[in-house]
């Protein structure tokens, strides 16, 4: 078949702008990266507000939230999808914001920890984490809370897990289910038992 480039939405466009690189990037990598940044525009709904962004195509959703929108509640831990500190809710589903590009989220509805509650009006999950001391240093906490809010939704929606004894019966709101579903969120302080208590309480309150 013949095909015209015009049949595609071409988002990237070469610009001559240079980018400032953090010092931990090797010299070789920074030469390659600075060579030719390519920018693109995207509109993402973040915490119920449309945000127009003009970004290097390489920008992850995580970096767009933190560096471009100054929503620094979402944390960068491993930056490789292993720790869950960057968990946000995208179109109702929890995801690792470090492993997705911002330009892939045209029109997406993103909820970050800043969109769940405020210091004056906490989300019930935030209140439960405080009550049960579900953290020590707090670095993983925004990701834990975003993940936990989505976990309760997944159980309500009947999505099974590795810990579900039956594939055909609805999953139950029990500790073994919550533990399994939260395994993508690491806590190096080891606050896991309190985190489970907090999620249990929030689950009972919402039931």
């Amino acid at each position, binding site marked *: 078949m013949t*095909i015209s480039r015009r049949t595609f939405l071409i*988002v990237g466009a070469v610009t001559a702008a240079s980018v400032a690189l953090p010092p931990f990037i090797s010299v070789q990598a920074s030469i390659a*990266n600075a060579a030719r940044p390519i920018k693109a525009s995207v509109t993402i709904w973040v915490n119920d507000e449309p945000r127009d962004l003009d970004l290097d195509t390489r920008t992850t959703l995580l970096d767009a939230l933190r560096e471009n929108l100054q929503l620094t509640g979402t944390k960068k831990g491993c930056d490789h999808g292993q720790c869950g500190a960057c968990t946000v809710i995208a179109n109702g589903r929890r995801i690792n914001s470090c*492993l997705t590009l911002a330009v*892939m989220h045209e029109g997406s509805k993103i909820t970050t920890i800043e969109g769940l509650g405020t210091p004056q009006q906490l989300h019930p999950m935030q209140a439960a984490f405080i009550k049960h001391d579900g953290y020590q240093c707090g670095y993983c906490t925004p990701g834990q809370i975003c993940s936990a809010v989505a976990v309760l939704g*997944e159980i309500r929606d009947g999505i099974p897990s590795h810990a579900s004894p039956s594939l055909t019966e609805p999953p139950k709101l029990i500790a073994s289910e919550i533990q399994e579903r939260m395994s993508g969120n690491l806590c190096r302080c080891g606050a896991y038992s309190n985190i489970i208590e907090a999620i249990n309480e929030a689950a009972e309150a919402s039931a």
Partner: protein
Amino acid sequence: MRPFTYLRAKSPAEAAALAAQVSDSRFIAGGTNLLDLMKLDIETPTHLIDVNGVGLDRIEATPEGGLRIGALVRNTDLAADSRIRKDYGLLARALLAGASGQLRNVATTAGNLLQRTRCPYFYDTHQACNKRQPGSGCAAIDGFSRQLGIIGVSTACIATHPSDMAVAMRALDALVETVKPDGTTRNIPLAELHRLPGATPNIETTLTAHELITAVTLPTPIGGTHIYQKVRDRSSYAFALISVGAIIQNDGSGRVALGGVAHKPWRVESAESVMPQGAKALTEQLLAGATPTHQNAFKLTLVERTLAAVMAQAREHA
């Protein structure tokens, strides 16, 4: 990451055609493995073609009584589909044993099949790896090989395919549908999608350049007891040391595929006739010719004991 242009394709054929028009392109769907590798300079595409908008996100019944799973169906949605849970429990269980909730929400059916090995020497760009840099050698063979392959390996590579989902699909005799840049389509048995490493471990599949996976088709359900048993170093969110995907009928016959032992989901159809004789006989046939390293020879025993446990569990269900 290296700079790249970002394009959104509107149909599968357009995506494949565009990929052929530009150099060093990759399709991106979930991106959970590709972006990880791009951050490490292991994947260095100059053009990304986003296929999320090409409309392959449904699970449909086939006229033959099976299911056609669109390439973009997310792992969470596939595992939660009521038809998959009822008739293809092995597939639901394998999916739920893999990755984390966050990753399963994003990772796609086709992306899961095409994910790269998690061999630590592939990931460490300071190490020799014939898969990452052909001709550089394999640091894994004399290195820390506990996680790595024991059968179908070569002197060039002992990496394993990391997918749980693919193990289930192998046991289920799945077919992979593709489209090429010229618009032609074909079906590839899952058994023939992944290659053994041989002398060219950098070539991992039988897909041709810019060929795009569009769907995975499951044949008519075959009943039986479906069990996916994954053995790993922690009880959640870890890759398999070994895994067993089995469908066992009441008379003791059945099918079995292994994960964590080879460069592809490992199934030996001719070995399945000895299943009623027990795990030892089955393991001897399944893993005949295995060449483990000193560090991963334990996997031979682990496979046999896991098979025994799976067969015992199936007898309880029968």
